[in-house]
């Protein structure tokens, strides 16, 4: 039965292997040079506190040197789309095509119970989808390691995205395994319910996309309680916007730009003006600071004045130490959903044909 599953997956497996090899060649051809750029920038052995500037200039150099920015974007897209593609082209047809073409009657009249038939097909297809996605992710992690190290040193730039960035989070670590398993079993389930390949593929895509949007927006931020802190207004690392509400009154907004001091990799959920105790304060510019606001706008003078009034920036965030717990929890959610869907497919199986 394992051999049959592999035979039936042959065409898809060839496409996946070809894509994997092409991807590996692309990364292998460009990765070593990126690493040598990193070595040349003298970031090895740096301390996060002292190397932010140099890390940023490395990231800018990498961004402006062809083809790193393009390879980076392409890789993230490929890894983020692979679970969806395997769900669509491996998962959805698994039952739907058999039901659509009537070949289920051939498959299920061999000397193998249909429960075992499905178990093997789910295992082979699901594990293959997980392996392909994770292989892509690991290759890219190797390629992008210098960029990640520079970001960890406090460097900023287009290529120094936070590891909590929604696209970065689902393309690194173990989440690709979870999403690959979920998309695959989602496809199989849609096929079992709809019994036609193309509509099953469409439904799979719609639901998977919805989950991938809902996860970073509503689910991931709430998996663990957020941490709170307040930081002083450091004008260089702070966004200070000033709004005129009438001729005599102004409001302002505050946010940290470059993460938390000392925790450049933390995942910032929100930030705003607060008093020293961390309680939000009115965003109306205090009257003592109105002259500064009038004369120089949202400049250092206003920032200093706000600081002297005891105003700080309150930050709600997930510390970087939550990265792996979040990865683990999100992957577990995906795998549990996959198991539930697979269980439903088994229950549904006796009623199919």
């Amino acid at each position, binding site marked *: 039965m394992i051999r049959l599953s592999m035979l039936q997956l042959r065409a898809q497996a060839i496409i996946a292997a070809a894509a994997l090899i092409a991807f590996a060649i692309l990364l292998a051809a460009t990765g070593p040079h990126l690493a040598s750029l990193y070595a040349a920038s003298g970031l090895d052995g740096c301390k996060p506190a002292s190397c932010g500037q140099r890390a940023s200039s490395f990231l800018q150099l990498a961004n402006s040197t062809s083809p790193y920015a393009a390879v980076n974007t392409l890789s993230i897209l490929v890894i983020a789309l692979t679970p969806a593609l395997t769900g669509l082209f491996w998962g959805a047809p698994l039952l739907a095509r058999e039901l659509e073409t009537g070949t289920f009657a051939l498959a299920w*009249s061999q000397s193998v119970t249909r429960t075992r038939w499905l178990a093997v097909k789910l295992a082979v297809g699901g594990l293959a989808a997980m392996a392909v996605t994770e292989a892509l992710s690991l290759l890219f992690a190797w390629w992008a390691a210098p960029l990640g190290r520079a970001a960890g040193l406090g460097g900023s730039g287009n290529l120094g995205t936070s590891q909590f960035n929604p696209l970065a989070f689902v393309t690194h670590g173990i989440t690709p395994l979870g999403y690959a398993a979920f998309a695959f079993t989602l496809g199989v389930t849609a096929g079992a319910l709809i019994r036609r390949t193309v509509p099953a593929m469409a439904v799979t895509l719609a639901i998977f996309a919805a989950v991938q949007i809902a996860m970073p927006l509503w689910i991931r931020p709430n998996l663990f309680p957020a941490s709170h802190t307040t930081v002083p207004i450091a004008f260089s690392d702070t966004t200070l916007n000033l709004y005129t509400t009438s001729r005599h009154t102004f409001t302002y907004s505050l946010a940290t730009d470059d993460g938390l001091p000392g925790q450049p990799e933390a995942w910032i959920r929100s930030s705003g003006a607060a008093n020293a105790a961390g309680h939000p304060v009115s965003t109306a510019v205090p009257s003592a600071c109105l002259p500064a606001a009038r004369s120089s706008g949202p400049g250092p003078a206003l920032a200093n004045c706000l600081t002297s009034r005891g105003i700080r920036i309150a930050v709600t965030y997930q510390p970087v130490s939550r990265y792996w717990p979040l990865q683990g929890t999100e992957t577990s959610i995906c795998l549990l959903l996959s198991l539930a869907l697979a269980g439903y497919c088994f229950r549904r199986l006796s009623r199919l044909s």
Partner: protein
Amino acid sequence: MNTAIQASGLGKRYRRAWALRDCTLAIPEGRVAGLVGPNGAGKTTLLRLAAGMLTPTCGTITVLGQRPGAGPAQLARVGFVAQDTPIYSRMTVADHLRLGAWLNPSWDDHLARQRISQLALNPKQRAGSLSGGQRAQLALTLALAKRPGLLILDEPVASLDPLARREFLRGLMEAVAGQGLSVLLSSHLVADLERVCDYLVVLVASRVQVAGEVSDLLASHHRLSGPRRDRAALPAGQEIITESHTDKQSSLLIRADGPVLDPAWAVKPVSMEDLVLAYMSRAGDDGPASPQRLKVAS
């Protein structure tokens, strides 16, 4: 005698309607049984239930003494060729044989290869590019090479041209002679069944109208014609299946336990087609539930 298929009160309901209801039958082992009936009689549902493709909504069915599809061992004992002889169109002929070998412990690879070469099929050819006849033959090869005790075929020749039909049935008969298996096949082409079957089941609206050895059925049914008369005049042990009357003439198809002795009748033998049509039209007029009631047939 062991039964190949035994059903009692068997029913299958889909979401809205019953596809088969209250079906009771017993087919002995070692027969090539033909299942005939009008469209919608429940033939396909019955065959799928027997093959273990479906589970009954009510009633029981046993195949070779076991519940259909009860496990790998039971699946191995039943070969099934579904309607339209499905095969994997993207896989080659050789891939299909590999599939059979992988999934069936009792696979007879020699038999499979021999049949493929007799049929002059190219093992490297994609099954999707085979002709209808070749496709049916490939499906039959898969079902035969697992060496089943019972082979179930659902309208295997319906879409084939006359030549391919003859070839298919010849291949089937050779295999039956060689392997000594029981066969149940459905068709609405009575001429094909006449060629291969030694047992006949007529199914109309889920009910078995008549079932038995073909030779017995042909021997016990007669077409009578003679001067018009009432059916009450028939002696005991004779049952009218269909009758038609003109002002002067009566024409009957009857089942009789013994010879027809009344000299007023001209007695003719019946063909299988006569028999099937008679039982189908009687059921159509009469409602399925009352074989004892008699009415004037068309």
